[in-house]
């Protein structure tokens, strides 16, 4: 499927989404800093339950797009529809319920440095739900285990963690409220191949068991091949192509060709 064939965004109140329904749609997104335009007229759809891999050269604006969708970077133009709400017209209460239902793993982790990992995971629960301390502690330890961190990491501060542990702890925080949609910005960069593969398996199993929709910026060809249902390529300020890995392998765009069928890509087989 090509970016041009995208249908209109879904309108109206949110219904129970079936797998394959469009959970997030972005239309005509334009983002720039000063006189420099990073994204221009970009369209994107994310379907319920899929793992969407996002690739693109360094500095093409993958993180900027993610931040624009999350509302952290102002857009010059464009509309974003998440869970059936238009982000522009959503009321404060609707926005809050949207924010409860997405989780974000930032490229640098963005853990709160003055809280321990356990407190970081419990922060969204503490703010949004009224749970007993016992239950929160149990859930935090469950999330820790889910992302593959040892229990004693829970008492550490972010500055005492390794790079890979920061990614995992940050994922645990993103998963704290059992979100429907998670944004992962380069989750496996900086992990050893075994850790990266485990992270991929984790993402996939979460997606399958919880119906989690995953938007994942990644450069990891293994993740792209093994777990992504669809892959979107960012280039020339818009989504160059979107489709399955097979579509990418047969795409003739020079950048896509060298990315998926270049020397480095071929060496892995």
């Amino acid at each position, binding site marked *: 499927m090509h970016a041009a064939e995208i249908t209109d965004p879904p309108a109206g109140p*949110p219904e*129970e*989404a079936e797998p394959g329904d469009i959970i997030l749609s972005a239309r005509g997104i334009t983002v720039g800093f000063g006189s420099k335009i990073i994204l221009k007229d970009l369209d994107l759809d994310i379907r319920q339950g899929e793992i969407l891999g996002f690739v693109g050269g360094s500095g093409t604006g993958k993180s900027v797009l993610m931040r624009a969708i999350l509302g952290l970077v102002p857009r010059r133009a464009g509309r974003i529809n998440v*869970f059936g709400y238009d982000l522009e017209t959503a009321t404060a209460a609707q926005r809050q*319920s949207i924010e409860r*239902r997405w989780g974000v793993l930032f490229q640098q982790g963005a853990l*709160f*440095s*003055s809280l321990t990992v356990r407190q970081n995971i419990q922060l969204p*629960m503490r703010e949004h*739900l*009224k*749970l*007993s*301390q*016992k*239950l929160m*502690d*149990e*859930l935090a*330890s*469950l*999330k820790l*285990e*889910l992302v593959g961190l040892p*229990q004693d990491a829970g008492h550490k*501060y*972010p*500055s*005492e963690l390794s790079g890979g542990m920061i990614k995992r702890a940050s994922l645990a925080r993103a*998963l704290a*409220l*059992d979100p*429907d949609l998670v944004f992962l910005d380069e989750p496996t960069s900086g992990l050893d191949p075994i850790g990266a593969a485990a992270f991929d398996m984790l993402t996939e*199993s979460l997606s*399958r*068991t*919880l*119906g989690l929709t995953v938007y994942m910026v990644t450069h990891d060809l293994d993740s792209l091949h093994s777990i992504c249902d669809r892959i979107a390529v960012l280039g020339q300020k818009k989504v160059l192509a979107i489709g399955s890995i097979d579509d990418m392998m047969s795409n003739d765009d020079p950048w896509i060709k060298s990315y998926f069928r270049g020397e480095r890509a071929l060496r892995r087989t």
Partner: protein
Amino acid sequence: MAFLEKNTPPAFRIDARSPDHQILCLSGDWTVSTLAAAEKLVNTIKLDRKLTSVQVDDIGMLDTSGAWLVHRLRAALEFEGQRVDIVGADAERESLFSQIEQHHPPRWRPETTSFSILGFLELTGRQVVEVGKDSLRMLHILGSLGAVLSTVLLHPKRLRGIAIAVQFDKTCIGAVPIVALMSFLIGAIISQQGGFYLRQFGADIFVVDLAGILVLREIGVILTAIMVAGRSGSAFTAELGAMRMQEEVDALQVIGLNVTEVLVLPRIVALMIALPILTFIANLSALFGAGLTTWAYLDIPPAAYLNQLQAAITLETLLVGIVKAPFMALIIGVIACVEGLKVGGSAESLGHHTTMSVVKAIFLVIVVDGLFAIFFAAIGI
């Protein structure tokens, strides 16, 4: 999948099958949004037969948190010797439960903090040790500052002129308006209050002596030092602290640069140049403010004010104040840099050390001013 906003509250029903067997039917949504209600509900469930089947197919929505509650209930029953099985789970829920079953949380213990005399003593001891270490750190910075200064004197090219100029611009030029305004007001207030009091004795004119000597010897330099500690000292601490948090200080070290030479020296040198200048400006501005109020309130014309001032103060009076400024600058700078380099990994520690930097600097500035007063009295100035 918690897609809907409207949650149906969780509920349960117990069906007895035989004297030994009961069925626990769970229904409603068991998600993170209904978790608080679900936890209360689970605490009220009483099961007393040997075999329990937990039926989960009536559950509307289930996520890891809800599944954890069900699992916890089951584990508690099994711990008491009952047999429990989960029935009616489809493939997805099956895998969710099997994932959670692998989780064995550590026994939950509420965190308790109790006050004890021992803890208080321990805290005091730690703080004493910390004070000792702090003095050591300050001596260390002073020592390396001396070492760097001596190399710079031998190789003047290594003095970072531009860095010093930049810091000077920030600490001195930027501070001029606020320091001038503050001293103007203080000078005006002193002479107004003093003037009203002295007028009772018909000694209004001596308010000029009072303001002149007080401002030049003490107030000018102290207030400027306090302002600079709050303005530049906190900035130094925050800058160095943020650099430490981002590992920039470590990067400097491995590149082979001397942290004291690159970061500390320019700041302290700039501050030591800036503070005397700022003090001088503060003095002028305070005397100007004093002149205006005496004119307005006590009808002392500017010419008479200047005459009286000339008689009251000498160059020595001015120098007594100015000479203290570089020492205070050194104290402020050293404390700010020591605190900045002590910042750990967290934002909280950055805030803590910035506060400590300002508090310690202001405290020491006043202590040192007192020492100077004793010293000057002893040598009769």
